[in-house]
């Protein structure tokens, strides 16, 4: 992978954002991200195929047929094979997987992948309706007004019962603190300008079930975001064509995908079992252990999801994810820095873009292009991993990357 690019993650928290003022549209984000990748890879003529990852613009923006926006990015992409993929919040990961498979199938040497979502087109209360499509629609009626916060609040409640509330809540607050601290180092992050001083104290605000959900407060949740991320997936041949040095690229060494029945409740509410499968597949394909990873981007749509993801990846035993966070292992100076540009909570969660944003962050870290966000990549740990989750642990894409 080469030539990553992120637009700003736009939404509350960014000084440019005002709900009543006009903002960039879907096509503006697509164009900005796509153009900037094309500049880095020597132009549209070098691209063989394109993939656009978008969850649900048909409802947020009343726009479908998104693949046809590629020629809008650059007329040079006219008549190239383009496809749009969707898998709820794992859409970006699926976009990458699709591109990777094209390269592996040797139908393409250079695939441009753009992930995009523009969600501030409606108020959050209506956005909850739209996002609930990531679950089984027949559960919507009995679901919470804030459907997915409701799902993960239920998981948090089960986790509290199983492993204790106090420590878990402290770990959730610490996760929030780390996310914002990391976001403050990344100029495109939605929380880049966050100046709150008492972050952990704030994150320990008691949940208000009357207005929101039972076991989560708003700081436990990723925000509503607009944005796009893009990257090029290239073969060795493609790399040469684009005139890019291997030092500026990262190698994909593991891909793990997994799917769980949308109509079924989680096998175990305190475990992300599908995540476990996808991560294992990715590590197996890479032929490495998690101890060889220098950094991880996990899908922290909610703080409780981060704790469970840490356990699903095997960094901590069931019930000990909180200890792992509270010991500082996931912070940027820790044993294994997680979500170094803020993750979904700190950087933002423009749904279809998230999986691609994770890959861009890893590309930046492994190629030492992460600016103020840069963490140390030890020579004996040249690997990194992303985990992108769609719905309530239903659609999973995990990737393992290696420094070239």
């Amino acid at each position: 992978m080469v030539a990553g690019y992120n637009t700003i993650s736009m939404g509350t928290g960014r000084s440019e954002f005002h709900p009543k003022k006009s903002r960039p549209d879907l096509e503006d984000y697509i164009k900005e991200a796509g153009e900037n990748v094309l500049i880095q890879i020597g132009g549209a003529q070098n691209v063989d195929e394109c993939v656009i990852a978008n969850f649900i613009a048909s409802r947020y923006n009343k726009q479908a047929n998104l693949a046809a926006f590629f020629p809008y990015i650059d007329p040079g992409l006219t008549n190239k094979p383009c496809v749009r993929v969707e898998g709820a919040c794992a859409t970006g990961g699926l976009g990458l997987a699709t591109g990777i498979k094209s390269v592996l199938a040797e139908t393409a040497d250079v695939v441009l992948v753009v992930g995009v979502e523009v969600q501030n087109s409606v108020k959050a209360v209506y956005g909850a309706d739209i996002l609930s499509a990531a679950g089984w629609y027949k559960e919507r009626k009995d679901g919470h007004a804030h459907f997915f916060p409701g799902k993960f609040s239920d998981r948090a409640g089960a986790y509290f019962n199983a492993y204790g509330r106090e420590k878990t809540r402290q770990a959730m607050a610490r996760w929030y603190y780390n996310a914002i601290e990391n976001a403050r180092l990344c100029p495109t992050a939605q929380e880049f300008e966050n100046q709150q001083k008492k972050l952990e104290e704030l994150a320990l605000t008691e949940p208000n079930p009357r207005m929101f959900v039972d076991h989560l407060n708003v700081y436990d949740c990723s925000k509503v975001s607009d944005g796009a991320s893009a990257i090029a997936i290239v073969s060795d041949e493609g790399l040469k064509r684009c005139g890019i040095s291997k030092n500026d690229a990262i190698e994909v060494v593991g891909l793990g995908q997994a799917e769980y029945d949308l109509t079924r409740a989680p096998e175990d509410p305190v475990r992300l079992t599908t995540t476990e499968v996808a991560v294992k597949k990715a590590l197996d394909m890479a032929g490495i252990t998690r101890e060889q990873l220098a950094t991880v981007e996990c899908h922290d749509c909610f703080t409780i999801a981060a704790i469970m993801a840490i356990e699903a990846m095997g960094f901590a035993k069931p019930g000990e994810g909180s200890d792992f966070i509270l010991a500082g292992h996931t912070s940027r100076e820790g044993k294994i820095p997680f979500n170094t540009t803020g993750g979904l909570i700190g950087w933002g969660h423009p749904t279809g873009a998230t999986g691609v944003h994770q890959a861009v962050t890893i590309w930046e870290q492994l190629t030492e292009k992460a600016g103020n966000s840069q963490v140390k990549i030890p020579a004996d740990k040249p690997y990194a991993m992303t985990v992108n989750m769609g719905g309530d642990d239903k659609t999973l894409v995990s990737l393992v990357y290696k420094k070239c």
Partner: protein
Amino acid sequence: MKYEEKLENVTVLGAAGKMGSGILYLTATEMVRQKFIPANKNREFVLYAMDTSHKALTDLLTYIREQAWKFAEKNIVNLRKAYQDREDLIDNEQIIRQYAQDLLSTIRPVTRIESAFESNIIFEAISENPDLKVELMSTINKNNRNKPWFFTNTSAIPISWLDEQAQLNGRIMGVHFYNPPAVQKLLEVVKTENTRPELSYFVADYIKNIGKIFVPAYDVAGFIGNGYLMRDVLYAEKLVNKLQQDFSYVQSVYMVNKISQDFLIRPMGIFQLADYVGIDVVQFIMSVMKPHMSKENFHSPLIDQHLHDIIKGGQHPDGSQKDGIFKYEKGQITAVYDPGKKRYLPVSEFSQECDEYLGEFPEGWQPWKKINRNPEKGELLKKYFENLRLSKKPGAQLALDYIKKFREIASDLVKNKVAFKFDDVNAVLIYGFHHAYGPVNDYL
């Protein structure tokens, strides 16, 4: 008759007005809330929105629809539960739409008084015209077999006077909302010696159900809110006269407004507040209160002069401020009206001299908006007032005098049996006027 039965048929008089529209909306929300209770499922609630203009009633429905949507969006968690048995309502949007429809369907916009003849409860929210209030209530009372209860929104007229004049036999009570009723948390409630107890039981439940709080007041013209406000305006005018010995009229008005807003850390200065309320309304309230106040002269030449020049203040239909004592641009004061010159003089032409005279704010000063939101407000105010007391600058000294007067007015309201206790006056100033602190405090 039980609470919910009484609520089955209600009329709001003056429903399209600033206060009436809010009272109508809140009552409609309460009707829908009652309807959610399983025992009330088959009960019909009817709310007559009575006003004189069809156009105003059409606009009223737009306002109510917007408010209903906002309310439903904010309370979606509970509304999903309330509509749980409606299998056709799945998405939040469907539920919000249904709520707005249910709320609107309780309302019957009418222009003819006959509709009120079948109501159990009449909320009266017409202009502060004593004779018109008496005429309307008396007519309804004579033609309504239900022996209706009257809840008047008057902020000035003694309730016992209305009771006697309209011959309501104790079926009246003062239920005074603050503007805008949909947003303001506080109500002032006034019983007379003859008010029937069942009215106050109903009102207590009603206020609680619509999520508000109330303070009781004695039945004295102006009650606590206007009892305070009118005296504040009169004191401010006195101060303007004093300052005019050394400064021009517009400079004096500018300075008194600045003292009462910035130095006192209030949401707006006293003359801006008069503009907000409406200069004509201030004059009208004074004139209504005057006959009931034998010892005080409730009359403001400054207000009279503005009205003579047809300067009224108040708000445009979109809620923006009309020009009054001040001229406004995007809500900011830009000029002061000079009755002598019959025109507005830009603040920028004279403010520097005034600001220099008043002196800088004492250390620890913060604007009202900032300090009022701060969880450590009490400590911040304490420090600020300590510094205010130590300052020898004219602005600080005038502010101290103002605060003393502020406390004296509050003290008189209790002494003269307008308010039951100091806490009630503080509550009115804090919740009704959004002051950061009440007149009775430990700061000075």
